[in-house]
């Protein structure tokens, strides 16, 4: 059952050089009680997509089309005061660099209090009790409520930011790079807690990250984004076992695995296109080892290949063969060193 359905969403930035479409015709569903990973490289639009859902885009950005159906309501069409009722209560965000998103001049407890009493339904004592409960939920020492953010370690601040997001029991959490810049042990504990919370609170989580190993260990389903478009969607185990899009294959090739050190890493040569002047056809075609004549001219649609498995590639039907070739470095035009 889809809690969130995004249809043909387009988000544009007005820049001094022109208009860029950072999110360009995205279709995506977030199911109830799942962790959906949104993975891609810097500039692919994954953060913009997350921020568009809760409508906290930068001043020079705006939704240019499409629908964001949350439990049947189109958030993209809501006037701002109504949208404000969805934030924190229905959808909450753990922003990128959440470690630095806490207000440095207020004690943690005061920041919890502010969020908890925003609805006006919770009295001071009840808010206090809820703050303690939230600390327990994310594994933050209750005594830390008396601390200022600078007195907390990175991991504790991250937990505090997650606790704040959970404060009003939202149904959807948008977590943007929630463990980037944290040490692996802290990362491990926070991601595991996030997965447990999903089950305990039947939360849906959209986890935005550049790290496919974080996706592998945390997400039920994953969506791969490239140059403003979703190129592949599926259950995480399926996407890892049988990637259908050459970009996903390339990401797998280039990612080191602590358990399989002997594998030669193969980079994806080149760089993503400038979104001010995107190429007319498939945006990955200039870097794709399997591009054929139609790829640079004809933009592939995101198609459902088998139930729940989507890919935007003209050659998706040949993926089984392409996957074998994808392990050959020379296919990727890698310079001989």
């Amino acid at each position, binding site marked *: 059952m889809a809690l969130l359905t995004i249809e043909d969403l387009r988000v544009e930035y007005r820049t001094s050089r022109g208009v860029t479409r950072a999110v360009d015709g995205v279709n995506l569903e977030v199911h109830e009680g799942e962790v959906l990973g949104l993975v891609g*490289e*810097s500039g692919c639009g994954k953060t913009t997509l997350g921020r568009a859902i809760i409508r906290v885009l930068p001043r020079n950005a705006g939704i240019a089309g499409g629908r964001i159906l949350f439990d049947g309501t189109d958030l993209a069409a809501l006037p701002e005061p109504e949208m404000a009722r969805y934030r924190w209560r229905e959808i909450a965000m753990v922003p990128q660099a959440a470690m630095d998103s806490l207000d440095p001049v207020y004690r943690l407890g005061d920041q919890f209090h502010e969020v908890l009493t925003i609805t006006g339904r919770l009295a001071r004592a009840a808010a206090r009790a809820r703050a303690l409960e939230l600390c327990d939920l994310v594994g933050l020492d209750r005594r830390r409520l008396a601390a200022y953010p600078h007195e907390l*370690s990175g*991991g504790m601040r991250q937990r505090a930011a997650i606790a704040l997001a959970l404060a009003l029991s939202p149904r959807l959490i948008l977590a943007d790079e929630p463990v980037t810049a944290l*040490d*692996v*042990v*802290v*990362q*491990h*504990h926070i*991601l*595991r807690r996030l997965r447990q919370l999903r089950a305990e609170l039947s939360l849906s989580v959209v986890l935005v990250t*550049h*790290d*496919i*190993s*974080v*996706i*592998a*260990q945390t997400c039920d389903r994953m969506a791969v984004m490239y140059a403003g478009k979703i190129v592949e969607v599926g259950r*995480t*185990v399926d996407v*890892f*076992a049988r990637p259908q899009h050459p970009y996903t294959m*390339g*990401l*797998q*090739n*280039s*990612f*080191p*695995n*602590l*358990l399989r*050190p002997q594998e*030669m*890493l*193969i*980079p*994806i*040569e080149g*760089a993503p296109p400038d979104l001010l002047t995107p190429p007319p056809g498939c945006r990955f075609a200039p870097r794709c080892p399997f591009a054929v004549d139609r790829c640079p001219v004809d933009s592939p649609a995101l198609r459902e290949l088998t139930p729940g498995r989507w890919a935007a590639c003209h050659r998706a039907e040949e993926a089984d063969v392409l996957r074998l070739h994808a392990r050959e470095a020379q296919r990727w035009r*890698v*310079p001989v*060193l």
Partner: protein
Amino acid sequence: MARPGAVMASRAAAPRIDGSLVVAEAVQKYFPIRRGLFGRGAGDYLRGVDGVSFAIPGGTSLGIAGESGCGKTTLARLLLRLLTPTAGRIVFAGVDLGTLDGAALLGFRRQAQLMVQNPYEAINPRFTIGRALMEPLIIHRIGAGEDRLDRVIAALTQVNLHPAEAFLDKFPHQLSGGQLQRVGLARALMVDPIFLVADEPVSMLDVSVRAGVLNLMKAIARSRQLTTVYISHDLSLVRYVCDTTMIMYLGTVAEIGPTDAVLAHPKHPYTQLLVAAAPVPDPTYPVPEIAAPEQVPTPIGPAHGCPFKDRCPHVMPVCHTTTPPLVFVGPKHQAACHLYEPTH
């Protein structure tokens, strides 16, 4: 002591008997802690690096890994004499780094180079790429005129920036992160060093371009017989690039040995913790249960016993009283843990 050119001369001279280019002997770096607004506290200090000994055989790569604050970056700076040890010494090609000054120090600076994490901070934004690469040649008075330009073009070509001429007049902001990090590597290579320290060289780069930079660094190190040190928090990267791996904890060496031994069969409970916690890009791999507390104690004030005792699942009474020495747990493989002492 060290005369001008002493280090340069040693380049041609025979390496140390054991073949090590760099040897750290009980290296210690304490930082005094300032208390309040006025002056220093009563002799409190932070143990950045606390008695570290190891040797790097010439032409090999050493990976130094550990959590933030473990002292790995401080150690990198000590190895390059950007910091001087509080105690102990670092011997480079048979010469104590602490004795270098004047021309000898400049000679060392030519032989040992640094590659930093953020390429946008590494290259002067007002310099063109050509100018930035020329700079080390000017400082070290290498070549002149046309010859310098040829060297710059050769360096750009070597790091796979083609055509090299197209990059000469570009400014750093016109390059992608991956391209600029290649420029950072090219600049380090301009002076033909024999020792390269790379501090988190790819952690700012996108995944798809990281592999290209790592492969390039591996290939160049091999072809030039470079001795390299990689500082990284990412064990999978260390596993991919380094011959030897050293795990640091609170300024000390927890474990050191051949990379495959240390990371595939870790002995020290801390290395075991790091390996278990490291995320793996494989959804079928079961996420292990980890009991150890995530909080690292602060390395301030005097040390008692094993630095890892507060987080260790195997802690014993002796761990609270005695600091474990490094003991051999396999061929060339050492761990500082009481579990492996012959008496236990």
